[in-house]
């Protein structure tokens, strides 16, 4: 493991640290804003008015709670564990991202920030942010890599319709990582008036903790729903991991339930060499990128590696710091599924259940398909279906020659 720079105080006791991971590695210009955000979030958390407004919007506007759906035909077909799908794909805007966008949008309003910026990969976070800005009457600028703008064009059009300005990013690999860097540059320049509505459990403290908290509702509902339906906890929860927001949201309330396996699925892309995938736990090394200390796909000089995944939302060189800690402690397991297995999973879920998953979420479905047969019929697997696949129809049609 690379040597890492630790703060002088014992790291575990510091806010924003997950084991040795996390922290705040940013240009000094951003520190005042990060401290303000942390402070405001600490005030909002116990504030009943804030929580009521957020709960109300999650319920009435976004459509929570989402169903925990028993996938009967998929279960029969795979011939093993009972499979449940947590239907985040049914949320307004089509993915879990709206949970966090609503939370941070309300927080931005509390702070009096009228301009919102965000990065997006698959476009789902961009659409969720543009939606919340329209709802709350805030100015919205979305940064998106040129490659992603092309492969997730439907979401670009949705953002524009919603009144957001979408700025293409042509630097580096022209994907999520480059969009985050450009958003951070904008934030550094306009930090006095602007809130950066970061879309995953990434970045400098307080983002990984705050974004996780806004997605905790996923596992809170899951737990209650599975207890109602089955009278017991699942044997495993499976979620795809890009930056890690839907996965940490799906895992969090089960962390103390040691018998529940937590399985994160990274993008295996099209090969195991550096540059061909986005499986940070297969070849990644701890380091610092975009504000946080975590596993990073990088070369021996510390230059960040290019990544590849058929799904824009998983195509990122680093991973949320809490996942890095869960990986090292062994509490969660991380595996990868490649582009081809993901396509098979899209077809399987569409044709057995009539559900078209996002390519990101299909990685979790693929892992479920791989392991379901190794379980007994009374075992329970829950797959977090983080989003729906309409945005991916262009790619799917091309791959499957529809």
């Amino acid at each position, binding site marked *: 493991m*690379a*040597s*890492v*720079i*630790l*703060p*002088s*105080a014992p790291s575990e006791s510091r806010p924003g640290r997950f084991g040795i991971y996390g*922290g*705040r*590695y*940013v*240009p*000094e*210009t*951003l*520190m*005042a*804003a990060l401290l303000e955000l942390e402070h405001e979030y600490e005030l909002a958390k116990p504030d009943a008015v804030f929580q009521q407004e957020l709960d109300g919007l999650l319920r009435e506007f976004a459509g929570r709670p989402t169903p925990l759906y028993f996938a009967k035909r998929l279960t029969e077909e795979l011939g093993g564990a009972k499979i449940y799908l947590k239907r985040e794909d049914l949320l307004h805007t089509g993915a879990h991202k709206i949970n966090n966008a609503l939370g941070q949008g309300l927080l931005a309003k509390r702070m009096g920030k009228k301009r919102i910026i965000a990065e997006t990969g698959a476009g789902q976070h961009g659409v969720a942010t543009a939606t919340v800005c329209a709802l709350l009457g805030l100015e919205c600028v979305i940064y998106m890599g040129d490659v992603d703008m092309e492969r997730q064009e439907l979401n670009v059009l949705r953002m524009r319709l919603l009144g957001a300005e979408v700025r293409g990013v042509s*630097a*580096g690999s022209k994907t999520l*990582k*480059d969009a*985050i*860097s450009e958003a*951070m*540059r904008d934030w*550094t*320049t*306009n*930090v*006095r008036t602007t809130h950066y509505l970061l879309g995953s459990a990434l970045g400098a403290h307080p983002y990984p903790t705050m974004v996780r908290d806004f997605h905790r509702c996923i596992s809170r509902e899951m737990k209650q729903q599975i207890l109602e339906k089955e009278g017991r906890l699942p044997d495993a929860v499976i979620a795809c991991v890009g930056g890690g927001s839907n996965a940490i949201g799906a895992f969090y309330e089960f962390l103390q339930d040691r018998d529940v396996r937590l399985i994160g699925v990274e993008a295996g892309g099209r090969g195991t060499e550096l540059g061909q995938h986005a499986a940070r736990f297969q070849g990644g*090394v*701890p*380091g*610092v*990128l*975009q*504000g946080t200390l975590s596993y*990073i796909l*990088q070369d*021996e*000089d*510390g*230059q*960040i590696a290019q990544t590849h995944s058929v799904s824009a939302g998983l195509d990122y060189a680093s991973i949320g710091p809490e996942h890095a800690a869960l990986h090292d402690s062994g509490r969660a397991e991380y595996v990868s599924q490649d582009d081809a297995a993901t396509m098979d999973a899209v077809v399987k879920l569409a044709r057995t259940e009539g559900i078209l998953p996002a390519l990101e979420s299909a990685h979790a479905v693929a892992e479920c398909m791989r392991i379901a047969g190794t379980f007994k019929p009374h075992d329970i697997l829950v797959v977090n279906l983080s989003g729906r696949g309409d945005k991916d129809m262009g790619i799917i049609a091309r791959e499957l020659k529809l």
Partner: protein
Amino acid sequence: MSLDFRHKPGLVVYLTTGDPDVESTREIAIAAIDAGADVIELGVPFSDPLADGPVIQRASERAVARHTRMPDVLRVAKEIRAARVQAGLVIFTYLNPILRYGLSKFVDDAKAAGADGVLVTDLIVEEGGEYLAEMERAGLAPVFLAAPTSPDERLEAIATHSKGFVYAISRVGITGKQQSLTADAESLVGRIRRWSKLPVAVGFGISNAEHVARVGEFADAAVVGSAIVELIERSTPEAAPAAVARFIKCLRQPQAALTL
């Protein structure tokens, strides 16, 4: 071999190592020192320079594409030190290349190469415990950035932990040229002086003789980065050292700038 500013105002020159190539970086640095630069900031190119504007982004991208590595930067530092004993030399970098190289080894090798200090763009004082201990051990000066947005208690911590000089960011933003200096710079320098007796250098956007003269009215030195990196971008490798030397001489003569 120290971070002294012999000239009034002092000049700090930033160069992205490896743009256009490492040998040119050495020649440009030596020419800059001979033309009156007090301190050279030797930049380590990084694939994701999120605190930098388009000019330094492009330079980093070119240098990374040429496989400019940390050992190359340290070798250039050593050669500059051998050629010009008196100049100040600071390694300017993002954190990840240091982590990958190994913190202790980096600090030892930077010292051995003759560097005086290190500036890590994305390392704030609070996260710098182990780094500060290593820098102290090796006898290198940690230079921290202070921003117009930094509240007084942060400026105090920055001033307390910096050695050599404090780097005051001239405006709220990333690196890159600007038309005129904002009021941010002067008030920041005033606030830093309340906490520190160290010299204060002002950087980000300083791109002509007027800016340098203006900075000289309230600070000890001006840092010139993007303007020089862009000049190098527009020059051939052979012409770059002389072009940079001419530019630096002009920076100290406000009236000459008009004819540039």
